[in-house]
C-alpha cells in the first residue's frame, strides 16, 4: 500500500480548492491599473497583397490610443522558429519570416494586419472596423499536393517554392528498405489522412503587457505552458529585451495541449505596445479568434506500406507523408513531422528496416504545430492502421499479428535512431485483454445485433518517446534550445520547503504531485512543501510542460536539487551530533546516527542552517537552498495497448463508443489518481479526433469550422466511462524517479482503436470492401462508406 501523501498515493489535489471556489487566477482575471485594450484587424482572405492601409478614420474614433500596422514593426524581429530541420539532400529547411503584424502580404485567414489600442475593448473593436485595407486577393494554396505543383502560387515570394523541406529518415536505409519490399511475401499499403485539429483549451489565449518606466522592465502575463521559453524567444529574437529586463508570468492556465507552448504575435505585440505607450495593454482572444490564430495540430496525408515475410513477420516499413506547416513556421512546427514522428515508426515492433519520407509544405492556412502527442499520434495511427489492414488481408487475428512482432528484449535499438530502455508489451496486451474482456466480445456482438446495431472491436498498441530530451541529441537534430529542466529548492528556517520549478502546470496537478516526491525523499508531510511555477522571476530557467516531460525531466531536477539539500542537511546534522557524515541517516524526517540513539528532527537542522550558532561555518555556508539542472540522457518510452468497442447505427452511420479500455506502462507512478485523469483526458481527445473533430478549409482558404457550431467538440454524452489500468510498470532506467510520462498516451493510442473498431464493425456486417475510413468518422462519412 502506498504511504499516505508520498510517492504512489492518490493524494487529492490542493490546487482544486481555489479552482472549485472561483478563486483561481487566470490571465484574463488580471487587470492592471490604466490598462488599454487591443483588438486586431485580421485578414479575411487567405492570400493577398496589402496595397494600402488607411487608419485615418479609425484614429479619430472615441477612445483610440494608437493604431499599429506592420510598418511599426519594421525594425523589430519576426517570430522565431525553434527547430531547424535538415533535408535529405543535406540542405536546411526553407524558413520564411513571420512578422508580428503582416508586412506586404497576408497569408492566411486570421493573419493580423493592424492592431488598435483603445481605452475599452468595444472601442478597439469599433475602430478596427473603421480601418480601410486595400488587399489584392491572390490565389490561395490550400491542398498540400497542389501547393507543390510547379506553377502553384507561392505563399512566400522570397522562397523557392512551397516546400519547407523534404526529409528522409534514415536516408542510408532507403535502398535496403526497397530491397526488402522486393523480397516481401506480402505488402500492405494504406493511404490515410491525419485530420487537422484545433487544440481548443477551454481558456482562450490572453496576453497583458506591462512596462515599468522607472526600471525599464517589461512584464508579460500570458497563457503559456512555458514562460521561460517565451521570455527567451520574445526577448532575444523579437523585441531585443535582455532577460533581466523581461519577466514573463503564466499564472493559472486553463489547458494548453500544446497550443500554448508557442510564442505568438499577440504576446510580442502587447509587450511591445505597453513599452511604446507606457501603459499596460491587454488582449483577450475570443473563441472565433482562437480558431484562426492558435496553432493547429496534425494535418498529415500519408501513404504507408508494410512488408511481411511468409511467416507474417514484419520485414520493412516505408512511409511518405505530406505535413502541413500552414503559412508560417510556428515555434516547434518543423520538429513534429520529423523527429517526433519518424523516430516512432518502429512502434512496439521488431521491424528491422524503416524509411520515412516527409515533405513539409507551406499553405495559406493557420500555422500547424504540436498538439497533444505531436507527431507520435500521427506515427501510431498509420502504423496501427496498416497492421490492422495487414491482418485482415492475411486473415489472421490482429492481436496475434501484433504479439508475434513485439519487441521483447530490452534495451532495444530501433532502426529509427532511438533506443527503448524498458518495456513489456506482452504484459500490457495481456492486461488489456483482461480489462477489456476481449473473450466476451462475441456475446456482446450478438446483443448488439439483436438491437439492430453493428458492433466492432478495435485493438492497437502505441509507444511514445517522452521526457524530451537529451539536449546534445536534440541539438544535433536541429533544436535551437536545450531541453533540460531546472529546480530550486528553498528550505526555510522552520523546515518548510518552497520548490521553484521550470515545469508549468496547466491542469496536470504539479502543486500536488511534486510535493509528494520531495516529502517522500525527506520523510515529512507533503503539506510542508509548496510549489512555485509559472514566473520567470522565480524559477531559474525552465523549458516548460509538454511532451509528457514534467515529472520525468522537471521532477528529476527537483529530485536532484532535493538530494543536494539532503546532502547538505546531513553534513549539518553530522556536525551537531558530532558524528561522521557517512553515519547519518534521514528517515521520516529524523536524522539519526547509525548504531546510536542520537537523533535530530528535520526542523532542528533547517533551523541550524539559518541560525548557525553550532554550525560548521569553516566548511559550509549557512542557509539551505539548492538549484539543480537536469538534462535527461534519453527519452522515456511509455507504451501500452488500447481496445475500443463501437456500435454503428446501420441506418444513419452514427458511431457510439460502447467501451474503451487502456492498459498503459508509465513506469513508476507518483499519483495514480492524477495519472488516470491524464489518460481519461487524452482518450476523450483521441476519440474526438476519431469521431468528431476536423478543421476544414474550403478551396479559397476560408475556415469552415470557425466555431463550436461547426467544429465538433467531444461532450459528456460522446464518451463512456473508461477502463484504465497502469499496473504494468517497467520503470525507466535513466531518470531518478523511474517515471515515463503519461500526459499524451491517451491521445496517441486512441484514434486507431476507434477506427479499427468501426472498420471491424462494417466488415462483420458484410461491407467487406471497407478497408479504411478517414477521420473524423462522422455519421455522414460512415453512412457514405456503407453505400459503397
Amino acid at each position, binding site marked *: 500500500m502506498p504511504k499516505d501523501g508520498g510517492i504512489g498515493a492518490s493524494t487529492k489535489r490542493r490546487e482544486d480548492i481555489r*479552482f472549485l471556489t*472561483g478563486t483561481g487566477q487566470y490571465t484574463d482575471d488580471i487587470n492592471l491599473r490604466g490598462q488599454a485594450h487591443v483588438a486586431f484587424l485580421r485578414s479575411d482572405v487567405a492570400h493577398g497583397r496589402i496595397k494600402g492601409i488607411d487608419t485615418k478614420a479609425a484614429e479619430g474614433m472615441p477612445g483610440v490610443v494608437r493604431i499599429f500596422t506592420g510598418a511599426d514593426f519594421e525594425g523589430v524581429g519576426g517570430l522565431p522558429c525553434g527547430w531547424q530541420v535538415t533535408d535529405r539532400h543535406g540542405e536546411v529547411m526553407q524558413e520564411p519570416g513571420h512578422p508580428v503584424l503582416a508586412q506586404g502580404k497576408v497569408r492566411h485567414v486570421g493573419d493580423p494586419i493592424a492592431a488598435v489600442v483603445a481605452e475599452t475593448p468595444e472601442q478597439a473593436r469599433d475602430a478596427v472596423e473603421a480601418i480601410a485595407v486595400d488587399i489584392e486577393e491572390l490565389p490561395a494554396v490550400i491542398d498540400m499536393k497542389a501547393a507543390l505543383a510547379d506553377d502553384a502560387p507561392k505563399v512566400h515570394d522570397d522562397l523557392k517554392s512551397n516546400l519547407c523541406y523534404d526529409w528522409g529518415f534514415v536516408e542510408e536505409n532507403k535502398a535496403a528498405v526497397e530491397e526488402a519490399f522486393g523480397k516481401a511475401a506480402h505488402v500492405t499499403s494504406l493511404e490515410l489522412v491525419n485530420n487537422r485539429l484545433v487544440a481548443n483549451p*477551454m481558456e*482562450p489565449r490572453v496576453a497583458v503587457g506591462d512596462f515599468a518606466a522607472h526600471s525599464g522592465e517589461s512584464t508579460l502575463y500570458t497563457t503559456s505552458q512555458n514562460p521561460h521559453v517565451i521570455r527567451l524567444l520574445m526577448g532575444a529574437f523579437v523585441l531585443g529585451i535582455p532577460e533581466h529586463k523581461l519577466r514573463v508570468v503564466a499564472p*493559472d492556465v*486553463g489547458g494548453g495541449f500544446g497550443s500554448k507552448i508557442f510564442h505568438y504575435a499577440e504576446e510580442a505585440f502587447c509587450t511591445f505596445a505597453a513599452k511604446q505607450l507606457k501603459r499596460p495593454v491587454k488582449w483577450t482572444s475570443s473563441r472565433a479568434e482562437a480558431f484562426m490564430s492558435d496553432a493547429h495540430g496534425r494535418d498529415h496525408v500519408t501513404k504507408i506500406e508494410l512488408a511481411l515475410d511468409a511467416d507474417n513477420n514484419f520485414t520493412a516499413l516505408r512511409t511518405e507523408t505530406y505535413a502541413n506547416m500552414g503559412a508560417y513556421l510556428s515555434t516547434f512546427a518543423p520538429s513534429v513531422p520529423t523527429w517526433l514522428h519518424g523516430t516512432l515508426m518502429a512502434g512496439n515492433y521488431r521491424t528491422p528496416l524503416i524509411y520515412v519520407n516527409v515533405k513539409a509544405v507551406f499553405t495559406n492556412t493557420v500555422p500547424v504545430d504540436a498538439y497533444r502527442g505531436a507527431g507520435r499520434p500521427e506515427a501510431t495511427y498509420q502504423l496501427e492502421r496498416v497492421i490492422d489492414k495487414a491482418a485482415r488481408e492475411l486473415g489472421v487475428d490482429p492481436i496475434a499479428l501484433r504479439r508475434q512482432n513485439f519487441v521483447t528484449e530490452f534495451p532495444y535499438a530501433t532502426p529509427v535512431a532511438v533506443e527503448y530502455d524498458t518495456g513489456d508489451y506482452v504484459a500490457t496486451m495481456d492486461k488489456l485483454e483482461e480489462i477489456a474482456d476481449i473473450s466476451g466480445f462475441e456475446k456482446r456482438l450478438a446483443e448488439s445485433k439483436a438491437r439492430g446495431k453493428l458492433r466492432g472491436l478495435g485493438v492497437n498498441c502505441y509507444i511514445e518517446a517522452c521526457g524530451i530530451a537529451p539536449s546534445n541529441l536534440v541539438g544535433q537534430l536541429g533544436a535551437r534550445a536545450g531541453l533540460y529542466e531546472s529546480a530550486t529548492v528553498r528550505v526555510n528556517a522552520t523546515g518548510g520547503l518552497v520548490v521553484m520549478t521550470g515545469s508549468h502546470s496547466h491542469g496536470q496537478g504539479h502543486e500536488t504531485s511534486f510535493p509528494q516526491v520531495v516529502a517522500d525523499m525527506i520523510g515529512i508531510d507533503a503539506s510542508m512543501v509548496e510549489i512555485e511555477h509559472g514566473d520567470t522571476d522565480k524559477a531559474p530557467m525552465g523549458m516548460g510542460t509538454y511532451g509528457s516531460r514534467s515529472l520525468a525531466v522537471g521532477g528529476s531536477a527537483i529530485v536532484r536539487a532535493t538530494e543536494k539539500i539532503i546532502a547538505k542537511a546531513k553534513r549539518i546534522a553530522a556536525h551537531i551530533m558530532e558524528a561522521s557524515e557517512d553515519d547519518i541517516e534521514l528517515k521520516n524526517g529524523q536524522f539519526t546516527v547509525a548504531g546510536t540513539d542520537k537523533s535530530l528532527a528535520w526542523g532542528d537542522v533547517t533551523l541550524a542552517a539559518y541560525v548557525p550558532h553550532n554550525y560548521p561555518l569553516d566548511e559550509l555556508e549557512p542557509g539551505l537552498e539548492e538549484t539543480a539542472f537536469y538534462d535527461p540522457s534519453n527519452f522515456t518510452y511509455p507504451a501500452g495497448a488500447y481496445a475500443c468497442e463501437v456500435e454503428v447505427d446501420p441506418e444513419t452511420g452514427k458511431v457510439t463508443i460502447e467501451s474503451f479500455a487502456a492498459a498503459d506502462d508509465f513506469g513508476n507512478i507518483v499519483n495514480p489518481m492524477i495519472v488516470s485523469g491524464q489518460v481519461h483526458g487524452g482518450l476523450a*481527445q483521441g476519440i474526438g479526433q476519431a469521431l468528431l473533430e476536423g478543421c476544414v478549409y474550403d478551396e479559397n482558404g476560408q475556415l469552415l469550422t470557425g466555431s463550436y457550431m461547426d467544429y465538433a*467538440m467531444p461532450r459528456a*454524452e460522446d464518451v463512456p466511462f473508461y477502463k484504465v489500468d497502469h499496473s504494468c510498470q517497467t520503470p525507466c532506467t535513466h531518470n531518478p524517479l523511474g517515471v515515463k510520462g503519461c500526459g499524451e498516451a491517451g491521445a496517441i493510442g486512441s484514434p486507431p482503436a476507434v477506427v479499427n473498431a468501426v472498420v471491424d464493425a462494417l466488415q462483420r456486417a458484410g461491407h467487406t470492401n471497407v478497408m479504411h475510413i478517414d477521420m473524423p468518422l462522422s455519421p455522414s462519412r460512415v453512412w457514405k462508406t456503407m453505400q459503397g
Partner: protein
Amino acid sequence: MSDITINVNGKPVSGPVEGRTLLVDFLRGAGLTGTHVGCDTSQCGACVVHVDGKAVKACSIFAVEAEGAEVATIEGQANPDGSLNVIQQAFQDHHGLQCGFCTPGMVMSAAALLKENPRPSEHEIREYLEGNICRCTGYHNIVKAIMAASGQDVSAIAAE
C-alpha cells in the same frame, strides 16, 4: 450607462452597465472572476451561473435582465464555514477537474441538476452536461463526482 444592483450570492452588487453589458462581464468586472468565458456562441458553459435558482449562461443574458434577481455564482457555493460543499468536495475527491477552467460552470450545472433530480443516472448526467464542455478530464471523473455527490456508490466505476 446606468447603475444596477444585482443580488449575487446573497449580497447586493452594484455597478454601471450599458444595455450591451452581459451578466458575465458585470460579474467579472465586480471582481467575481470565477465565472469564465470560453466561447462566443453560447456553447461551452464555462459561464454557467444560477439566476433565480435556474442554470443560465451568464454570457447569454444581459446584466440589466438580471436586475433585482438572485444570482448565484461559484464564489458563493462553499459552506458557510468556508469548507467545500458536497458537490465541490466530490469534484476534489474524484479528481473531477484538471485545469479548472470549465469547473465553475460544471459545478453550477451539477448543482442545478441535483436540485431537479437528486439521484441522476450516468446517462442523465451526461445528457444534462450537453452545454458544458471540458477539454481536460474526458468527463469520466466529472460524471463520477456528480454521482458521488448525489450519494450514489461509485466504487464500481473504474478505478481512480
